């Protein structure tokens, strides 16, 4: 019994968090689709999530593509399948690595920033002030971030896909001495629309997760600077874990036959 009780309490606590998160998510979606809208805030968040994340996502993508090409070469050379490198790089990047790496980078950069900003607003009564000024905090703070995350992550992933494939191309042609035209031909040969679409669907889901977790933890932060720090950490950790688990389920839905 002494062993079971803490497990039971932890499980109940987990269910309570899941319930609160679900209610928060539903309220956020309802407020995001109902007017009034805040186009200026949505634009600002799009700039923050999309444009200002480009350098970190681009750098991550190019090195991921380069490493993938090198690793594939050293592995595939063992059974003379070097010609598959271009295909492996493009499929890996568009289906998996582009959206997952971009999602994790944005979780670290944007999820933390959202939780810190909203958390600070919570502990300094700025969210209460919004309410007293007849402004719904869900519409003003949460909805613009959710919409921006949902829209900008797929766009970031398009850029990440192109840069990642380009990274593989650089290593393939300059270091592994593939014929450039042949490498590009192999890149396109087996790429299908579904490969790219599945990656973009993942990106939209990851963008939603990052924004939702940042807002949820920020909204529920308490206790001053320490509380904001905890909210920030929780936002990054929970969105990273949810991204990786959602990645499995979306992959299974698209390719799980």
């Amino acid at each position, binding site marked *: 019994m002494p062993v079971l009780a803490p497990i039971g309490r932890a499980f109940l606590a987990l269910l309570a968090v899941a319930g609160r998160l679900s209610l928060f998510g539903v309220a956020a979606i309802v407020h995001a689709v109902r007017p009034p809208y805040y186009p200026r805030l949505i634009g600002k968040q799009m700039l923050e999530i999309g444009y200002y994340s480009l350098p970190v996502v681009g750098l991550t993508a190019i090195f991921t593509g380069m490493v993938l090409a090198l690793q594939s070469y050293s592995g595939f050379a063992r059974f003379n399948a070097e010609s598959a490198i271009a295909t492996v790089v493009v499929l890996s990047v568009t289906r998996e690595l582009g959206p997952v790496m971009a999602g994790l980078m944005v979780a670290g950069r944007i999820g933390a920033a959202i939780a810190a*900003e909203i958390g*600070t*607003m919570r502990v*300094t*009564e*700025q969210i*209460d*002030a919004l*309410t*007293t*000024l*007849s*402004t*719904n905090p869900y519409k*003003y703070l949460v909805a613009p971030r959710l919409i921006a995350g949902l829209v900008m992550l797929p766009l970031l992933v398009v850029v990440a896909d192109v840069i990642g494939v380009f990274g593989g191309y650089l290593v393939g042609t300059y270091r592994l001495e593939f014929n450039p035209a042949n490498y590009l031909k192999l890149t396109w040969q087996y790429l299908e629309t579904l490969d790219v679409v599945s990656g973009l669907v993942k990106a939209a889901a990851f963008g939603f997760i990052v924004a939702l977790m940042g807002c949820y933890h920020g909204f529920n932060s308490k206790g001053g600077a320490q509380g904001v720090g905890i909210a920030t950490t929780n936002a990054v950790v929970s969105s990273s874990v949810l991204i990786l688990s959602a990645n499995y389920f979306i992959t299974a839905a698209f390719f799980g036959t």
Partner: protein
Amino acid sequence: MAPVPKIRLKGVKKRFGEKVVLDGVDLDVAAGESVIIIGGSGTGKSVTLKCILGLLDPEEGTIEIDGEEVTRLSGRERERVNAKIGMLFQSAALFDSLVVWENVAFGLIEGKGAARQPAKEAAIKALAAVGLTADVGEMWPADLSGGMRKRVGLARAVCAKPEILFFDEPTTGLDPIMGDVINELIVKTVRDMGATALAITHDMASARKIGHRIAMLHAGKIVWQGPVADIDRSGNPYVDQFIHGRAEGPIRMAVRA
């Protein structure tokens, strides 16, 4: 037939877990009246205010504003009621991401849909009314002193011409001179607007200056209320101990010297 009070609390109870914070608060505030709730730290002053503002839901009792029960209102209806309200927070709760004039005009722009230019002009007028020049309007909240933040908070509270003003510890954290300046501003603003005011404070100088009537909150109940002039002869042991700042008396603090 007696006029309907501007604000009426009847049997308001609020608890956090096992801790009962409000244990049946009854209070009427007439239109045009300034009522001050005094009491020690942790007696439920802020919770009372948050219940009236709709930031917390009481478990029992009713809260009426202009005769309308407001404790169970939906989001939109609450926003309509909050449009009658202006609030000066203890920390001023200015929005860090907006310059001063945008903070002051926030209720007009976001709450009432006013255009930015006329809203800016109204904000600069409100700043002038609290003794701040137009150039302060272009500053960021982080660049303001404590006294200036309170003034900006007061300008924001009154800019949209609310019928009811709430003040949460308006002089806390200010030096005595600046505290008196803020008190004078509050008295002048409330009088000029013909507004109803409800303030919470433990600063007796402030309470005597800005209030018509004082209510003493202790252990979640109003233990005495009456005109400011009567407080020195209230005959209530809680009030006597509080206004004279004595350690000995019926009010027991959690930590004693």
